[in-house]
């Protein structure tokens, strides 16, 4: 089963070590950042030297960008150094030449603008600068929930899972229009605060479909018996197989029911974003359309937890469906993990909690018909678009969409016992 875990212990260990050594590295931060800005500063200084002759000049640096204010002195020092290399000595406040550098940015990234003012004459030069600094470390779990970034990218992600291929692990990412396969990169992380492992795309398979996909796109990856995995999408079924170390994916139109529990499947409405309510095999009862269904361990055995389109959360136990109370704030996506804490199983639910700038994630237990929160809400700086239990059932994958700029992230969420 270890092969199915796509948040390997090695990486986790690295993260812990990273946090423990973060404070020690703080003093090295300016040096690291200086290395980041060294190239752009040198380039802009060169451009400045082309429009300003050597000699003393008054240097003014101001920041109109998202660069942290603490980095400005470092950048200024870089400019002073680089300009000096071109014979321009920054200093004299009474100098006739004023070099005004504005660290600006636009929709395409950083833009450093240098204005060389000599009397009434002004010359301008600009330089594009990448501001793709590594994202800040996400807030760690506060109480019992902990999440780990697996993958991040600009394209929508429906599901992601690591499937073992002989000799290595492959991260299969299901997107609306393709299935992408990633290999773990051997390069080191660019910044000490980075938390995402580095996956490199190795293969991509377009998903052919004859009908338009619904606007709220959903998809699931399931391990298959006779091949590597099945990818279920609205009206489409893809099969992935490993052949000689290479993956092959074939897709075709299909209205097959999707697996929702170990024993049951449900028909998905390919024009919408929900299941029709028809299960195979059925319960002998009629169900309303629902978004999510999963089996949940119960003392009596197993039950199915359903999140209906109308907002009701149903627990179908022993062929009896009952409303679960305390689910008013539940979102439409949840996953059941067997953490071993508490009753042993928790429902990770999107949406509840006091978040104002994004969704939140909370863990609940349902001892009877009441959902009882067992964790503090974990704020998520984005929208949770999918919650899928990992194949081993102890953790769950969470797909988050972040905006401005739009990015999709795959997080692995685990519940830690207090």
């Amino acid at each position, binding site marked *: 089963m270890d092969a199915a875990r796509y948040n390997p212990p090695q990486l986790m260990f690295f993260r812990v070590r990273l946090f423990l050594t973060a404070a020690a590295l703080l003093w090295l931060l300016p040096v690291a950042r200086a290395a980041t800005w060294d190239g752009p500063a040198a380039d802009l200084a060169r451009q400045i030297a082309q429009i300003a002759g050597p000699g003393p000049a008054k240097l003014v640096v101001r920041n*109109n960008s998202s660069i942290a204010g603490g980095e400005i002195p470092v950048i200024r020092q870089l400019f002073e150094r680089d300009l000096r290399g071109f014979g321009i000595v920054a200093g004299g406040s009474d100098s006739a030449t004023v070099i005004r550098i*504005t660290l*600006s*940015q*636009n*929709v*395409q990234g*950083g*833009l450093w*603008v240098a*204005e060389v003012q000599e009397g009434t004459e002004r010359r*301008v*030069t*600009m330089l*594009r600068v990448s501001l793709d600094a590594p994202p800040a470390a996400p807030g760690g779990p506060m109480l019992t929930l902990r999440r780990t970034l697996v993958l991040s990218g600009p394209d929508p992600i429906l599901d992601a899972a690591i499937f073992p291929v002989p000799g290595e692990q492959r991260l299969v990412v299901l997107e609306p229009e393709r299935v992408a396969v990633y290999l773990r990169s051997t390069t080191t992380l660019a910044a000490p605060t980075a938390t995402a492992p580095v996956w490199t795309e190795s293969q991509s398979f377009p998903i052919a479909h*004859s009908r*338009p*996909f*619904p*606007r*709220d*796109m959903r998809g699931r990856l399931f391990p298959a018996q006779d091949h590597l995995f099945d990818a279920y999408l609205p009206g489409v079924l893809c099969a992935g197989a490993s052949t000689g170390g290479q993956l092959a994916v074939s897709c075709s139109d299909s209205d097959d029911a999707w697996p929702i529990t170990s024993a049951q499947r449900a028909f998905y409405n390919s*024009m*919408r*974003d*929900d299941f029709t309510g028809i299960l195979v095999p059925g319960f002998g009862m009629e169900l309303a359309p629902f*978004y999510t269904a999963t089996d949940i361990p119960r003392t009596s055995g197993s039950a199915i937890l359903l999140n209906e*389109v*109308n*907002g009701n959360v149903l627990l179908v136990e022993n062929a009896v469906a009952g409303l679960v109370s305390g689910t008013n*704030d*539940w*979102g*439409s*996506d949840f996953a059941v993990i067997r953490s071993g804490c508490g009753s042993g199983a928790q429902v990770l639910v*999107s*949406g*509840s909690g006091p978040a*104002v*700038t*994004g*969704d*939140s994630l909370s863990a609940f237990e349902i001892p009877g018909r009441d959902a009882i929160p067992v964790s503090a809400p974990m704020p998520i700086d*984005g*929208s*949770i678009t999918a919650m899928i239990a990992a194949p081993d059932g102890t953790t769950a994958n969470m797909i988050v969409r972040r*905006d*401005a*700029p*739009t990015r999709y992230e795959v997080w692995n969420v685990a519940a830690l016992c207090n």
Partner: protein
Amino acid sequence: MLRRFAISGFLFCLVLTAGARTRPRYGGTLRMETTGDPWQMPDGVARRLVLDTLTTIGESGAAHPALAIRWESQDAAHRWEFVLRPGVRFHDGTPLTAESVIASLDQVCANGSIGPCPWSAVHAVGSSVIFVADSPVPDLPELLAQTGFDIFRKDSNGAMDGTGPFRVSGFQNGALILTANDDSWQGRPFLDSIAIDPHRAIRDQWLDLSVGNADMVEVPPEMLRQAQQQRLNVLVSRPVDLLALTIAPDGPLSSPGVRQSIALAVDRAALCNVIFQKQGEITASLLPESLSGYAFLFSTDRDLDRARVLRGGATLPVLVLAVDDTGASMQLAAERLVLNLHEAGFNVQIASSNSHPASLTLRRVYLQAASPRAALDEMLARFGQNGTVSGTDPASVWQSEQAALANATIVPLLWLPRAWAVGERVRDLSLSPDGMPSLANASVEGTQ
């Protein structure tokens, strides 16, 4: 400025994510009210929902696939090939073909509603549309994302039929009814229909929102504060409307010095801080700072003494200032400009029905593009300036803009955002980079 940008971004993000905890539900009708015509160019809401373009603009300003799934340029951007998305149909079931795209674009170019088209010829090769231009058009993909290049076909009644997520189903009680297109290539929208009640006064819109008769209403920039005080759920776009004063170079203001004098006499700070309640971005640039990154290079300072010197003792007739917008804030801004110019020695009157032709015009110009180069090209076209941006680097864009503004026929004043107040039952509504609501992705609560 940075703070304002941050606030705008904050609001932008706030509404984007608020209420996104559950999946959108299909069905329901969203009731929307507007002050303008929902079909107007270039920012008619209904037009955006019914018609598609070959490309769309992403957050970074780059073109994204829409009706065209890919494209490539050849011959140094003199020739472009756009490959159409297969399987797309107009609302009446007619397949989208390269020929229908060309017919649509030919109509657009022929009626001149968006000015001259930047290509000299367009023809079909299979499912591809080939554009050939005499001069390079490096930003054609971004250009084709503009509303003016909507792809449509006209039915037997002359009505426009598109491929968008909604189709026009008629009018009901004065409201334009759009119904969901089940076969939309982007997937059926969540809403069953959208009712757009046009030409509603802002106060009436807000009243309707407060009593639940509307789900989405407009919020003028100058009323953003008020909306926030009333705790309305507000969506605020990035700056997309440029308030600018245009000066006719062929009338009494033919002297560049006098035009420069006018540019120096205007008090942008008063317009921004008071009339537009600090919701705008003071500018002397044709592009907002967040888009170009260099807008600060254009001075926005008022220099009344220099304005008087530049005006000199020229004997000028009473100048007429026209306003191309009937909104109260625009009228107020025009009156303020009259006062500003009066201080510099200009005698200006606001245009009335019987006044002389205007030599000054206060305009509110809408910007769709979201990349600096395409945006400058768009603005130059909107202001009727000839030429396009020559290079692709920021310095070239800046130099082109500097050249366009050098003769002071355009005096940019403020960049303003667009804002919408949204009812509680609306979910997942966001604004596209051009400031317009993405209603196709929105849904409403309380529907099955």
